[in-house]
């Protein structure tokens, strides 16, 4: 039984949305492999893999993942699903960004000094946000008064944004969750969405056996394969919260 168990490190979003609680029993039933997971920030998840304390990773930070593989820690990066990021803010849209493209919107926020919450935690989301500022040609506003770094999870950051009447960037899954908690009448609305750069790609990584000879590489591959399987992809497609789909499967 011991050899048939797998340890995974993943990001909080997959766990907090309940996706794993929904998906994993199917995996266990179909393959007979039991899977345990620990949900942490992307950075820590990668670190746990680097230290060989887990067998497989499910993360969403493509540039960091690629670097990770290049450093010889990971292997077999397999894209399995995505959702997208949105910019949310007060309904009255104080910075007037509604409908703008992402770079314009960020520039508007900066010039209006509208409050913007950053997770500031090196998570996949945070890394994406940093990239967006860079693409918009803005130097990271680390010490600006209007740029608030919470260093917390997505939902906590949204809550801070609500308390402060500010903006933030969030993945759509968490936003839907937030909406549901506000009884469908959330004070913060989606203001910017749809840009292709806002895509949030999730991938499964196995660990390079050269770095971690003891990690269960074979089982990890099986998990990776299963996630990409038609069955799993369908399950992901069917996973809904408040009637809304959270993740879009895109395994090749």
């Amino acid at each position, binding site marked *: 039984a011991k050899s048939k168990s797998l340890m995974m490190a993943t990001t909080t979003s997959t766990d*907090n949305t309940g996706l794993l609680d929904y998906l994993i029993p199917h995996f266990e039933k179909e393959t007979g492999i039991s899977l*345990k997971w*620990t949900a942490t920030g992307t950075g820590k998840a990668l670190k746990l893999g680097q230290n060989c*304390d887990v067998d497989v990773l499910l993360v969403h930070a493509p540039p960091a993942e690629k670097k990770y593989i290049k450093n010889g820690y990971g292997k077999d990066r397999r894209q399995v699903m995505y959702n997208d990021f949105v910019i949310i803010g007060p309904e009255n849209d104080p910075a007037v960004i509604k409908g703008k493209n992402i770079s314009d919107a960020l520039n508007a926020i900066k010039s209006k000094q509208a409050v913007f919450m950053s997770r500031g935690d090196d998570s996949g989301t945070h890394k994406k946000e940093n990239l967006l500022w860079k693409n918009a040609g803005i130097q990271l506003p680390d010490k600006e008064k209007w740029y608030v770094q919470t260093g917390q999870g997505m939902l906590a950051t949204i809550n801070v944004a609500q308390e402060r009447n500010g903006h933030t960037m969030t993945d759509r899954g968490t936003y839907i969750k937030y909406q549901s908690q506000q009884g469908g009448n959330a004070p913060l609305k989606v203001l910017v969405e749809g840009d292709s750069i806002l895509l949030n790609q999730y991938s499964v990584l196995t660990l390079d056996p050269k770095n*971690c000879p*003891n990690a269960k590489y074979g089982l990890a591959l099986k998990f990776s394969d299963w996630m990409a399987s038609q069955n799993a992809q369908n399950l992901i497609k069917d996973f809904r919260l408040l009637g809304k789909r959270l993740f879009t499967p895109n395994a090749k």
Partner: protein
Amino acid sequence: MDFIVAGFIKAIELLISGDSSTWTAVWATIKVSTGSMLLSIGTGLPCGFLLGYFDFKGKKHLRTILDTMLALPTVFIGLAVYAFISHQGPLGEMGLLFTLTGIAIGQTILAFPIVAAITASTIESIDHDLKLTLITLGAGKRHIIATCLWEVRYGILAGAVTAYGRVLTEVGISMMVGGNIKYHTRTITTAIALETNKGLFANGIALGLVLIMIAFIVNLSLSFLRKQ
């Protein structure tokens, strides 16, 4: 505000409905805190006794170090323990990472200075005449330790209860060393952290109440040990 009320209702629901994830977390919490308390009392009492009973050079410095250990952040302890028991650490072989045993080790490091420091200061307050009396009654070293500790049992109980509160409520070690793995190493506190992270504040409150209830039951049974 309303999530606090909701939390109360939810707490009762969770316990009555026999929600399996709640109950496994309850058991994990009880197991791990019992283990770490036994370990920390087993090590902290004798150390505290030595530090409080004897006068020796450097005693004050030792006390300062012990007091400083009271301020070891749990995440720090978690990281340090992780460093040792991670697969690449020196004790990686033992497979303690992501286990309750691993958490208990970390929590022992957390509770030890509390037990030792409060024992030491309680023993220090012992009447000099007690020591003399014990010696003159022919008590050997072991009896002196046992009797002194028993004489100040209320003070030591206070130290143990404080340490228990600390162990019961810590998150950092459980999270780092245990990994908050559902049905395995998820304790009530890591569950609270998770629920809170999810924004399910009422669940967090509910689990908090469950934890407080455990503490209450433990303290209620200890209260029979108290001075009547």
